[in-house]
């Protein structure tokens, strides 16, 4: 596959790994006091585990898996809200695949479907709009999820529905934005990170400028990265070079797709349709100001929450679940009491175990083999 295979060539990795080794040695950090670099995006977590990257890195460098899996950070209360919409009569509830297994307090969408709710898996919001056109007598509710990566497609679909007068199309928006979340993360106590591998797909939309504050205010290096193994390794090398030089800037490793100013058309569509919520709850991280997006008043007729009353009850995570600390990078997945015992991909308690991009599921599936790599990263 063009633009994929060349970034998976193991030969290319050898030189980068040698550089990484050399740079880490220069920092003087050790396995006991490792450098901590957070990859924010679930896509990166997935790639890191899929290609076994952690096992190739020096012991004095630890990758911390951040909160960038939109399915994982969806709080229990919002899943319950989604269920309350899905079980309504005359409703078709359209969702991305991995969201339908997320457990709420009263089960998942998958279980609701088995009990008769009309829940459909779609691959894009435009699939949901098509469902609405085909079923004019039913309300089709699209389960809007994701960061700026998926917001533009939802926004453009709402604009299309408005243009074509498809009034039975609704969006249940759980869209979130990266910048307020990053700031909340940087402000949280007990979090010591040496740099960030920034989300490439989000940056295709918003560009790299919005991250400037990370370097300017918090003095942390930040490298926007692609998703192939060589991309991730190269980004880590760029971060290490900054750390060794004592620099903190925002750099763009993913130049083949990310423009510094992002995608104007996509940004305009978001701006037209969505506005920030006063506050939005994240699983494990609590409420973060301006981190969620809702439909503007002008598009309220497409807003599922304006149409139907949802319970909107904040439901605490199950007591034993430590997803919050995992998402903040405060503990490693296997340090959670229920990891691999009560909480497994078959019986997920917390959201990090549900999506294959979640840190716990990724670790359960790909990482549990090598106990030595586990021990050495326990800090």
């Amino acid at each position, binding site marked *: *596959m063009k633009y994929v295979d060349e970034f998976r060539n193991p030969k290319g990795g050898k030189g980068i790994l040698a550089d990484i080794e050399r740079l880490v040695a220069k920092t003087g950090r050790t396995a006991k006091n490792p450098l901590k670099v957070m990859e924010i995006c679930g896509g990166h977590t997935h790639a890191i*585990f899929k290609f076994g990257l*952690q096992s190739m890195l020096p012991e004095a460098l630890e990758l911390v898996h951040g909160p960038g899996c939109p399915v994982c950070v969806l709080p229990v209360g919002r899943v319950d809200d989604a269920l309350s919409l899905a079980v309504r009569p005359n409703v078709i509830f359209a969702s991305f695949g991995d969201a339908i*297994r997320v457990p709420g307090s009263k089960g998942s969408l998958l279980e609701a479907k088995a009990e008769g709710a009309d829940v459909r898996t779609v*691959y894009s919001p435009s699939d949901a709009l098509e469902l609405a056109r085909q079923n004019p007598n039913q309300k089709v509710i699209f389960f809007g999820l994701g960061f700026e990566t998926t917001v533009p497609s939802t926004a453009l679909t709402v604009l299309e529905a408005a243009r074509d007068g498809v009034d039975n199309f609704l969006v249940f928006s759980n869209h979130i934005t990266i910048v307020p979340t990053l700031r909340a993360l940087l402000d949280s106590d007990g979090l010591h990170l040496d740099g960030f591998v920034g989300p490439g797909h989000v940056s295709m939309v918003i560009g790299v400028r919005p991250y400037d504050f990370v370097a300017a205010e918090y003095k942390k290096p930040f490298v926007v990265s692609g998703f192939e193994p060589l991309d991730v390794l190269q980004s880590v090398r760029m971060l290490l070079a900054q750390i060794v030089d004592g620099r903190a800037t925002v750099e763009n490793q993913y130049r083949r797709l990310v423009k510094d100013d992002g995608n104007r058309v996509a940004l305009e569509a978001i701006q037209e349709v969505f506005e920030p919520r006063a506050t939005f709850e994240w699983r494990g991280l609590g409420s973060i100001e301006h981190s969620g997006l809702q439909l503007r008043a002008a598009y309220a007729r497409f807003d599922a929450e304006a149409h139907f009353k949802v319970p909107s009850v904040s439901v605490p995570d199950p007591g034993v679940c430590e997803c919050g600390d995992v998402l903040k990078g405060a503990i490693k997945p296997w340090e959670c009491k229920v990891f691999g015992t009560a909480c497994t991909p*078959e019986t997920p308690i917390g959201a990090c175990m549900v999506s*294959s991009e979640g840190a716990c599921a990724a670790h359960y599936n790909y990482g549990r083999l090598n106990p030595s790599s586990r021990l050495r990263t326990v800090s």
Partner: protein
Amino acid sequence: MNGDDQRLMQRIEKHRRRLGKVRESVVVLAHGGGGKAMRDLIDDLVVGELGGEGLVVDEDQARFSLGALAAHGDRLAFTTDTYVVTPLFFPGGDIGKLAVNGTVNDLAVSGAKPLYLSCGLVLEEGLPIETLRRVLRSMKLAADEAGVQIVTGDTKVVPRGKADQLFINTSGVGVIPKGVEVHAQGLRPDDCVLVNGYLGDHGAAILVARGELKLESDIATDSAPLNGMIAELVKAVEVRAMRDVTRGGLAAVLNELALSSEVGMVVDASALPVRREVAGLTELLGLDPVHLANEGKVVVVVPAKDVEPALRIMRAHRYGQESALIARCRAESPGIVTLDTGFGGERILEMLVGEPLPRIC
């Protein structure tokens, strides 16, 4: 009774003995009712399309001579599988072809020579007769290719909405040649794992054929009878274990074998045969070819000394041209399958949990 009456009676009796013919264009409830309509359906479609020397119509069961069976070996293999698939027809095959090849392969991977199949049909009221005819014709073609006979069957019709068009159950009987010992517990450290070609074709073909993705591709199902190739293999080399790769994909088969035999297994990611189109599709959807279904693939485990002759036999066969050595067994990490990512890293290759669901981003 005068001559005219006699001729009339003869005409009626001749008519009664003629093979029935279905006049409806769709399946109706009467086709499962046990009366004349059902007789017509069986005569016209089941006997007409599936009929061969082995198909028993007058009795409620097929009968075999034990002596004839014993000529093939010393143990019977017996299996059953039920086929439900949407859509019924897809590139490279249909539900009928799957129903024959699937059961043939389930028998063959025990080392058995598949001989006889049954065919149970559950028809939804309203199913076009032509659809049923096409499926049965395809079953007949598949059975002929595999060298098995469909010898008994059953037909039920359920009201519209109580089934999705057409379900097929096939059971199969085969005979295992004397001396052939193929077991899931048969793997030993240093044994080698082979597969007979491209992974994930069937799963990918069905995903595209459902039309939900708005993608076009030339990917076709890999549905094929593997008994011919397997018969040559078990004759020539020592086969420790075999399993056909179906739902759950390669990952499920390797994990089952590793757990049953309590050996570790290291898969070489760069050796996995995957078509470019399938690799692209799975990359796009966040799926993995090792989790996609196949209908004409078999995992064969042989001792290291037999790798070369086994691959030679497999590659010479129509359904094994892309055969490859994909994994080795080891004593360490018993029950765990790991993947050498080809990038220097190693990770666990786990069975898929739940259905393969596309990731959001």
